[in-house]
């Protein structure tokens, strides 16, 4: 099996509702399992309409979601396509954690695009209400990254 095929399979599997997949072809065998350690992260709650949240199937709004959100929280979205990193290096501490209150100019994350590390900074003083993307994930233009509240 080609690496690309494997990647494509992994991607499809990840998006699927399956928890385990065994795939055999021409003597190759691939077994994919989802590790369910913690309950799945809550779907990003939507206060404003996210600028670009690619939707495969229109998702029904979670009933309790709107109630949980402070009225003034807002979403910071990805300004480019890239890989999302929460820290400067694999062993370094994350730039920010949920609940952190940071000043304008503080680095929030790194977006890697074409081997360039783009540091992405707070444009105003803010509190991190939620971090919406897992470390190392690909983000599209407009993917919500952080839910924040101005301070």
């Amino acid at each position, binding site marked *: 099996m*080609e*690496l*690309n*095929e494997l*990647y*494509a399979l992994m*991607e499809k599997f990840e998006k699927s509702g399956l928890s385990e997949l065994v795939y055999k072809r021409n003597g190759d065998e691939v077994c994919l399992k989802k590790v369910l350690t913690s309950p799945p992260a809550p779907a990003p709650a939507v206060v404003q309409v996210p*600028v*670009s949240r*690619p939707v495969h199937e229109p998702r029904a709004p979670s009933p309790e979601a709107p109630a949980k959100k402070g009225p003034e929280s807002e979403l910071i979205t990805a300004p*480019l*396509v*890239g*890989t999302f990193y929460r820290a400067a290096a694999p062993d370094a501490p994350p730039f920010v954690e949920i609940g952190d209150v940071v000043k304008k100019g503080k680095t929030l994350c790194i977006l890697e*695009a*074409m081997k360039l590390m783009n540091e992405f900074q707070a444009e105003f003083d803010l509190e991190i209400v939620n971090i919406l993307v897992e470390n190392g994930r*690909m983000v*599209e*233009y*407009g*993917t919500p990254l952080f839910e924040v509240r101005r301070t």
Partner: protein
Amino acid sequence: MIQSLLIANRGEIAVRIIRCCRQMGIRSVIAYSQADRDCLPVLMADDKVCIGPPPARDSYLNVRNLVTAAVLTHCDAVHPGVGFLAENADFARDVRDAGLLFIGPDPEVIELLGDKIRAKHSARELGIPVIPGSDGSVGSREALAAARKIGYPVIVKAAAGGGGKGMRIVRAGGELADVLAIASHEAEKAFSDGTMYLEKYLENPRHVEIQIVADRKGNVVHLGERDCTVQQNHQKLVEESPSLAVDPEMRRRMGDDAVRLLKSLGYTGAGTVEFLVQEGKHYFMEVNARVQVEHPVSEMVTGVDIIRQQILAASEQPLEIRQEEVRLDGYAVECRINARSAGKVVRFHVPGGFGVRMDTFLYSGYSVPPWYDHLVAKLIVSGRSRTEGIRRMEGALSELVIEGIATNLEAQKKIVAHPAFRRGDYGTGFLGEVQKEGIL
């Protein structure tokens, strides 16, 4: 063989490429702007990546986001489609540097052909007839000298030109210097390059182009000609094959010239060599180093899937057709349906039947965004003869329903019904004349 293909384009050409991917068992990934979230190719592709906001310069022309999207979605190739970055050598280079295949010629070839002066020079060196003109780029002094030598009217053109920008006809010497300065300024603004050259202006010629497919094994095959004489402000509206202005002997000569030129350049993929034809003679004009909007016309008469050949060529596979097998079987014609307004398509009906093909990205309920090219559909029909094909086109045009947006559908019906079009005796000035009759 390519496994996963990123499509760096939108609209009907993206749909066309996705269909080909499906047929070939290739995973398709569509790059799209925020304005195109509900666009048909986004609904059809196996995967999708939003690459920017609506303005094209921030999305479909955003090289960094496109290449990153291709890498992160594990694609091994990028198809640039038509327009946008299709003839951008830097994009082709960045795709290659990222370790991906670019579906098209090498960046060096795109660069050479993008410079119309160098392209013309390459053709002349091979003994291919070119339109008489200046020897390379001109300032006002060289332009005056060249024009005196070849005689008026002349046309000044931008070396980096395309789409009629930086192009002006000059009928007398007095105005040449001023017109040249204006055209150069226009070219500078449009292409960041104000280099100009000058040619004899041919009155009312026919625009005839040769379709080429080439693989990486040295095979270069031409699929005959398309006649794209029906143009409005240098924008093609109706294309047909074969051309009434070309006989078998002339087809052989034009095809041979086109093949020799692209072979000498080490060209790969689909390309078009454009000629002007007047009084039985053909003159090289330029090469479009990409697949063209009107490629289905050649597909319909030859039975060769041009997008498929492009993908095979990029994958180092040989072409599926040899020159001696190419036949122009019957006749095909395409009408471009252009939107004249953006908005929601409330009712959409696609014509059908024997010999009818529609390439489009419209569907009922789809909102045409105001940001991009106005082409919304291509209606292509074939027939055993030109008469049969045109009658079929008339029938298909009358079946087509697009409600909610303004289009050029009625104008297309009038063009196809026009006696001069029926007779076939017209040049590139045809639509200008028809407009004066007040029927468009």
